[in-house]
């Protein structure tokens, strides 16, 4: 079962609470469905018309007593559903007071900008978190509505332009949790994926430390040429300004372009040559680079650790 995602692999206390509630309500619902189905099947068999018989059956107009019974029973069930809903809702989404966020996520068509205010780390599309800690995440969008959703870690929440949201994020065991943008946000909504990499506190601290540093610009070989081209070809117009994802530690990411491609040097080459092919209509333009230029830039980007 652990190959399956979503409710089948709850990996945070929030998600576990949600799954408990889901299971409870679904079991009751299936029971109600079962009772109704069995009742109807029984009636259909028992009271089917037998061809010889043409007399009309006894005419029966109803009974207030029966009506009251089947108003009160569902009302009680609904009451129980509501009570457990409220309990779970406050457990999953307690108020955050005036605590500062640990992570800021900003939605873009069609990638995620990530910022850790406490350490100043800036990255994209891949969230790193330490396990066993509840992070407070603040969410916003610069263009249309997106929705942050990592099924195994709990609730989803919209990223709404002009409206700030908060959510608690945690993971109880290390692993890579796949997620996606869940609110339809335009052409490439399907390729706006996110992943959360949950790791031990030490690994997380190491990651954060590395990402705080700006890697030295290579001065020799292909990579140096790439560094130069990266400036000349106007990549920085977008990639240093927040229009495109931050590329400072690109090679440490697992995927490219919000999950459209795996992050390998050869895929990076393909992506730079023709982004349109791998993520049609995305806002990363085809920069019309020559093979030499592409290879140089890739060498440069690979050197950024």
């Amino acid at each position: 079962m652990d190959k399956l995602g979503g409710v089948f692999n709850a990996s945070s206390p929030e998600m576990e609470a949600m799954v408990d509630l889901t299971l409870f309500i679904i079991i009751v619902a299936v029971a109600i469905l079962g009772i109704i189905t069995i009742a109807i099947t029984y009636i259909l068999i028992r009271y089917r018309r037998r061809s010889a018989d043409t007399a009309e059956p006894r005419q029966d107009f109803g009974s207030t007593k029966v009506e009251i019974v089947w108003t009160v029973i569902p009302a009680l069930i609904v009451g129980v559903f509501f009570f457990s809903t409220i309990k779970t809702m406050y457990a999953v989404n307690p108020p955050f007071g005036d605590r500062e966020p640990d992570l800021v996520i900003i939605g873009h068509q069609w990638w995620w900008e990530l910022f850790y205010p406490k350490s100043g780390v800036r990255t994209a599309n891949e969230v790193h978190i330490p396990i066993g800690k509840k992070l407070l995440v603040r969410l916003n969008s610069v263009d249309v509505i997106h929705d942050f959703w990592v099924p195994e870690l709990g609730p989803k929440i919209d990223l709404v332009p002009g409206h700030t949201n908060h959510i608690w994020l945690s993971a109880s065991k290390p692993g890579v949790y796949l997620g996606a943008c869940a609110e339809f946000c335009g052409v490439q909504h399907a390729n706006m994926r996110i992943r959360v990499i949950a790791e031990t506190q030490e690994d997380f601290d190491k990651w954060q430390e590395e990402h705080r540093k700006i890697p030295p610009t290579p001065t020799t070989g292909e990579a140096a040429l790439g560094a130069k081209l990266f400036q000349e070809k106007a990549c920085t117009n977008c990639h240093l300004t927040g229009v495109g994802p931050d590329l400072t530690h690109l090679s440490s990411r697992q995927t490219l372009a919000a999950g459209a491609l795996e992050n390998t040097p050869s895929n990076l080459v393909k992506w730079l040559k023709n982004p349109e092919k791998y993520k049609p209509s995305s806002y990363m333009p085809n920069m019309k680079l020559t093979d030499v230029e592409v290879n140089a830039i890739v060498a440069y980007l690979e050197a950024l650790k």
Partner: protein
Amino acid sequence: MSRIPLVPEITEPLPSIRESEGLLAWVASIDHKQIGIMYLIATLFFFLVGGIEALLMRIQLVRPENDFISPEVFNQLFTMHGTTMIFFVVMPFLIGIGVYLVPLMIGARDMAFPRLNALSYWLFVLGGLLLYFSFFTQSGAPDVGWFAYTPLSEKPFTLNKGPTYWVLGLLATGIGSVASGLNNIVTIITLRTPGLTMRRLPLFVWMILVTSFLLIFVMPIITSAFAMLLLDRLLGATFFMPATGGSAILYQHFFWGFGHPEVYILILPAFGIISEVIPVFSRKPIYGYEFVAGSTVAIGLLSLGVWAHHMFAVGLGNVFNAFFAIASMLIAIPTGIKVLNWTATMWGGKIHFATPMLFAVTFLIEFVVGGLSGVAIASPPIDWQATDTYFIVAHFHYTLFGGSLFAIFAGVYYWFPKMSGRMPSERLGKWHFWLTVIGFNLTFLVQHLLGLMGMPRRVYTYHDLPYWGDMNLISTVGSLILGLSVIVFVWNIIASLRSGIPAGNNPWNAWTLEWATTSPPPVHNFDLVPPVHGRRPLWDLAHPDMPDK
């Protein structure tokens, strides 16, 4: 046997095709029966179009990383599919069958305002044309989803003209629906034959009445929101543009303030159909008439206060969410009353499994599946997982297809003899039924699981995660079987129109007034209306020894 004459509302017979032959006679008609039939034909057409759009989507989704359809086209397909099915299939079908039946069921000659009735119909057609015209514009059809959330649907993010046509088309049909609602209300209040008190009104008419009130209450909500969106798009107003001071969330309140009652507009008349079909084929009166009618009013009222259950993930706070959660869950109670009363109606009856009854009985189970998943997602913590996934897609296809559409099929088979004078083929009807049941459940049952496993909706492609491919394959196979079932259905209609056996006035031995006249009814509907002393006038006629109370 004493028969009392009709309410002398309209004295001269209304113009109709039977006076002058040809197409113009239909186009210019203001006869409620012709208009009703035109509604049904147009909705069948739109159903085929919307269905083909669905099939194309299913083919694209048949395996991971498929590239049969480009993302732009896929987005247009689900937008057009959803819009078409809701606004140009289920809604006008139910309005149309209401237009056909309400005057007959209450013993009137026509609607209160026959010309307004024709206007409603043609506004609906105009809306459909405007919507589909967008396919011929340079950038294609709208691609922002059937609820066109702002700011995505605003000019800066969707330059193409699709959403503009979409808004215009829906404004036109929307105004038409308000007119139908008004017309129905006045007709039902003023044109009932003597003796047909509100407490004796056929349940179908009751449900149409409540639906009509919902129409006049909630259509203006969306009309004003669409007007605002149009002003934003065309004149640079800034209602829903956060960048210039507008609010993205306000649109959602408006849309769902309409959108949720809308889903009851799509189901209440369907409940009405079920409430007519089940008693007749069980040979018993409806169990608990007052409760079935009263629960409809309760549903109508509750439905006005639950809209934000579509917005649990917007981040509006726990208290807010809790209110809308309980309001939504409460709807389970009146709906449950209905389901249980229908079930009790069959208890102790003599059930005749003709095609209408097959669809009606299956409706009960399929709809309850959809209703129960609805109650589950009315719980915010569950919805935080389920919203915008295939679980929701499964929920609303179980309510809309398993609910509304199954009832519509039941209604079509039930009233086909009345409208055409010929019986539909039982053999083809059963084929249609079984193919629909199998295809429908194959298509949509697995989508619950897909959603719970994390598949978002409105994605044109997906990664090859464990079992996703297999389940989507099952779903696509199911949809192809559904396609086949629809072909059988259309074939049945055509074949039965040509060579079905003549039906006679009352082939199902039913009890409401529409069965007291010929099939198809004459232009003026009735020469004489039987006396109405109870809920089942034709039962009273046939059983003078044991009339209803």
